[in-house]
C-alpha cells in the first residue's frame, strides 16, 4: 500500500491543531476554574491522554491499514458504523464552525479590530480552497515544516518570560485547590483528545508500521502537555489568575509585556499569527475529514460536488453559532468541551473495548 502520510506528519498536525486552543482557551478556562493553582491542571490531563493514545495505537495495531469507518464496520456493523460516522460528521461540522468563528474573533480582537467578519471568512475560503486543491499532503507537510519554527519561537518566549514571572501569583499551592485543578483539567483533555484524528487518516499510514513510528504519537502528546503546562504557567505567573480568567486572550496580553534583551518586542503579533496558522490547518484538516465522512456515509465515489454547498453552509453557520466573544466562550465551555469528550474519548474507548473482545476474530482476518 502506498503511504500517503507518515506518523510524523500526523503527530505534527496534532500538535499544530492544538496550538491555538492552548494559547487562547486553556489558560483562561484553567484560571477561571482553579485560580492560581491552575497551571498544574495540564499534568492531570496525562492520566487520560496516555490511555487514549495507548488505545488508539492499539486500534492501529489491531487494524493495520484501515480507517475509523472501516474499523467501526469490523466492530459494530455497517448500520451502527454509519450512525457513528453521522455523529462524527456533525461534531466536525460544529468544530469547523467554532474554529472559523474564533479565527475571525481573534483577528478582530487583536490586529484588525475595524475589519468585518465576512472579509476574514472570504479570505479563509480562498486560502483553504487553494490548500485543498494541492491535496491532503500539502496541508500535512505545511504543519510539518512550520511546527519546528513555531516551537523555537515558544522556547524564546518562555526564556524571555522567566524573569517576569511573579512567584506570588503561582505559590502557595494549597491541597484545597487540588480538586479544582483536576476538574479544570477537562479543558486540557478536551483539546488533547484531538489525537483521535489519527484514526481518520489511518488508511493513509500504510499497513506496516514500526514501533518507532508509533512513538511519534507519544512525542506529539508529550509536546502537547509540555506546551499546555508552560503556556498556563507563564500566563498565570505574569498576568495573575484573576486577570487571566477575565481576559478573552490572556496569553496575548502576557506576551505584550515581554522583550528579548530589549532588542525584540511585539511578540503578540507573532502569537496572533501562530494562532491564525493553527486555525487554518485545523480548518483544512476538519474539512478533509468532513468530506471523508460524507464519502463513507453515502458511499460516494466522487466528492468534488460537495465543496460548494458545504462552503455555503459553513459560511452562514458561522454567523448563527456565535456573534461575540462572550457567546463563543459560553458555547465552547458548555457544548464543545462535552461534545469533544464524547467523540474523542467515549467512542474510541468503546471501539478499543470491542476490539479486545473480538480480538480472535480480528486476528484471523489480518
Amino acid at each position: 500500500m502506498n503511504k500517503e502520510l507518515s506518523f510524523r506528519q500526523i503527530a505534527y498536525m496534532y500538535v499544530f491543531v492544538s496550538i491555538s486552543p492552548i494559547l487562547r482557551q486553556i489558560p483562561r478556562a484553567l484560571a477561571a476554574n482553579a485560580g492560581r493553582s491552575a497551571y498544574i491542571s495540564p499534568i492531570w490531563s496525562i492520566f487520560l491522554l496516555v490511555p487514549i493514545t495507548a488505545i488508539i495505537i492499539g486500534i492501529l495495531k489491531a487494524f493495520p491499514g484501515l480507517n475509523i469507518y472501516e474499523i467501526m464496520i469490523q466492530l459494530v456493523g455497517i448500520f451502527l458504523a454509519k450512525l457513528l460516522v453521522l455523529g462524527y460528521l456533525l461534531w466536525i461540522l460544529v468544530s469547523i464552525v467554532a474554529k472559523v468563528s474564533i479565527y475571525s474573533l481573534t483577528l478582530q480582537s487583536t490586529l484588525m479590530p475595524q475589519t468585518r467578519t465576512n472579509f476574514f471568512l472570504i479570505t479563509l475560503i480562498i486560502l483553504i480552497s487553494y490548500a485543498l486543491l494541492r491535496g491532503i499532503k500539502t496541508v500535512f507537510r505545511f504543519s510539518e515544516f512550520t511546527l519546528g519554527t513555531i516551537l523555537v519561537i515558544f522556547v524564546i518566549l518562555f526564556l524571555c518570560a522567566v524573569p517576569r514571572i511573579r512567584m506570588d501569583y503561582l505559590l502557595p499551592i494549597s491541597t484545597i485547590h487540588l480538586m479544582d485543578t483536576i476538574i479544570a483539567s477537562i479543558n486540557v483533555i478536551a483539546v488533547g483528545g484531538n489525537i483521535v484524528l489519527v484514526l481518520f487518516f489511518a488508511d493513509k499510514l500504510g499497513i506496516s508500521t514500526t514501533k518507532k513510528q508509533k512513538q511519534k504519537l507519544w512525542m506529539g502528546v508529550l509536546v502537547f502537555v509540555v506546551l499546555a503546562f508552560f503556556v498556563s504557567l507563564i500566563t498565570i505567573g505574569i498576568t495573575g489568575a484573576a486577570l487571566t480568567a477575565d481576559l478573552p486572550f490572556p496569553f496575548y496580553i502576557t506576551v505584550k509585556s515581554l522583550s528579548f534583551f530589549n532588542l525584540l518586542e511585539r511578540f503578540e503579533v507573532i502569537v496572533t499569527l501562530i494562532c491564525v496558522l493553527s486555525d487554518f490547518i485545523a480548518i483544512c484538516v476538519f474539512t478533509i475529514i468532513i468530506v471523508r465522512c460524507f464519502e463513507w456515509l453515502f458511499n460516494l465515489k466522487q466528492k468534488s460536488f460537495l465543496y460548494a454547498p458545504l462552503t455555503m453552509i459553513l459560511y452562514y453557520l458561522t454567523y448563527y453559532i456565535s456573534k461575540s466573544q462572550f457567546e463563543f466562550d459560553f458555547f465552547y465551555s458548555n457544548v464543545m468541551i462535552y461534545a469533544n469528550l464524547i467523540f474523542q474519548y467515549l467512542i474510541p474507548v468503546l471501539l478499543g473495548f470491542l476490539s479486545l473482545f473480538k480480538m480472535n476474530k480480528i486476528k484471523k482476518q489480518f
Partner: protein
Amino acid sequence: MIYIFAFSLIYTMIKLKDQLLSAYRNLILFLFLSIIGLTLGIVYVINPYLPSISAMLEKYMK
C-alpha cells in the same frame, strides 16, 4: 455573498453535471446540501440580527 454562493452552486452544477448525474445519490445529496445552504443564507439576509445558537442556549440553560 448569497449571490456569489448561488452562482458557485450553479457553476458546480454545470461543470460537474456528469458527476452529479452519474449517481442518483450524488444529485440528491448536492441538492439537499444546496437547499440547506441557501435556506441558511436567505434567513441570514432577511434578518441578520437573529439571536445566535449560543445566545439561545445561554438563555435556556441559565
